[in-house]
């Protein structure tokens, strides 16, 4: 099947005070339509930087990113940040409309689409509130709705649940799976939590080393709904840990 996005030989480097630091090197990644890919790796390996490059907030130093022109979508990508980053002066509905204001849609169409997106994450009834009136979990749901509302070819998520408490996090993980299987949304999900990655994704790509490289890419062939203690999932998680473990000896900022 044709992939939605093809990343080839991607390298990312920063120059600071004449010193050049390579963050990522030679990254190849293809994502199929409707696929849920998770990227794991210790903090500082360049996961966020990769997403920033994909969404256009930073430029790569090498390689190409090609989007399949046949894929029908209003925007190439939309990003959900770790902290919800809702605009505090906008009501929830207006926050969800935000990305739609870049489109040709009329005010009414935007409103309807935003309401549908909010309903999709079960938050229609808070449409008129301000972000500070919501819980952390609700805010993150709204951030998800804001991203989904623009109907992106690929939904990018940068550790979206890592700031939440365990119960809320697990609830949102299940919610994401539900939304994703219902819509067939292609997702690129970044996390430092290996268990989260194997629980959610169809494929887990582990980054490690400095500069960061793909250490292992593992298909998770367990149908949803999954059990968190599923033996196959535990086995995959252990496999990823083993591969990344070699890094722990030389890296002190290991967080898993």
């Amino acid at each position, binding site marked *: 099947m044709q992939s939605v996005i093809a990343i080839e030989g991607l390298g990312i480097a920063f120059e600071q005070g004449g010193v050049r630091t390579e963050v990522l090197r030679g990254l190849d990644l293809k994502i199929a339509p409707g696929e849920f890919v998770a990227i794991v790796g210790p903090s500082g390996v360049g996961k966020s930087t990769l997403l920033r490059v994909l*969404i*256009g*907030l930073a430029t790569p130093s090498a390689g190409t990113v090609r989007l399949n022109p046949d894929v029908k979508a209003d*925007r190439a990508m*939309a*990003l959900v*940040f770790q*902290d919800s*980053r809702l*605009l*505090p*002066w*906008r*009501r929830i509905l207006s926050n969800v409309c*935000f*990305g739609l*204001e*870049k489109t040709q849609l009329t005010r009414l169409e935007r409103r309807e689409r935003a309401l549908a997106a909010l309903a999709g994450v079960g938050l229609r009834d808070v449409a008129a509130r*301000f972000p*500070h009136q919501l819980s952390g979990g609700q805010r993150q749901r709204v951030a998800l709705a804001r991203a989904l509302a*623009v109907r992106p070819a690929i939904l990018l998520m940068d550790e979206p649940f890592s700031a939440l408490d365990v119960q809320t996090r697990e609830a949102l993980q299940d919610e994401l799976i539900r939304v994703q299987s219902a819509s067939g949304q292609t997702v690129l999900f970044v996390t430092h939590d290996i268990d989260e990655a194997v629980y959610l994704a169809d494929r887990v790509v582990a980054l490690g080393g400095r500069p960061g490289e793909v250490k292992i890419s593992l298909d998770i062939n367990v149908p949803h709904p999954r059990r968190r203690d599923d033996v196959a999932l535990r086995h995959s998680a252990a496999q990823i840990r083993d591969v990344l473990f070699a890094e722990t000896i030389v890296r002190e900022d290991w967080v898993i």
Partner: protein
Amino acid sequence: MRGATPYLLAAIGLALFLGVWEAVPRLGLLPPTLLPAPSQLPAAFLREVKSGIWGDSVLFSLWHYAIGLACGTACGIVLGIATGMYRPFDWALAWIVRVLRPIPGLAWVPFAILWFGIDQTAAVFIIAIGCFWIVFFAAQGAIRGVDRDLIEVAEAFGFKSGPEKLVKVLFPAALPGMLVGVRTALGQAWMAVVASELFGVSGLGQRMQQASSLLATDIVVVYMLTMAALYGLVDTAFVFLQSRLLAWKA
């Protein structure tokens, strides 16, 4: 316990103040021309109102105030945003700002008269200068202080040009800071009103000047209180507007 207490204490404080004020001229500690007793004021106020001078002065001053404040604030916000957003623009203006900034509004009076004559425009000009700097620095600081993370949200959703970022994130995020500056300017502008009218443009300042040269100090006090009342009114209205605009704040 709390309920009425603050109001009661405020009333007692005010009554004591008025009492001492009344006592000083009455006991002959100061002659009434140097300090008019508060009980003289209502009569003086009525005289001024009946002659129509009070109403005219208030209208003239409010007019200077409103136009000067609007011009100064608008220029301050526009230039503050521009220098806040674009470093090269800020660098280009840096030394001009450094030279002009310390010159007080009153120092512009000679030029205001030369350029505009003894005319309302001159008063408006002086008031506008007073407001401009306050709002300019407030707006510049507020724009620079906008959370980078929120600007990134705009960029991530495709709002990449300066104007787009300004409308979608920078302006609304900087609004609270800018309004603080505008509120300070609101007070500053009243001081400028008096100053700008002292050299002969009609208004409260001019009337105060006339009254004081005639040693009609009761009338001077009437206009001082008038100005305090007008400022109180404007400031209250502004705070109300501010709370409506910033209803999203926790």
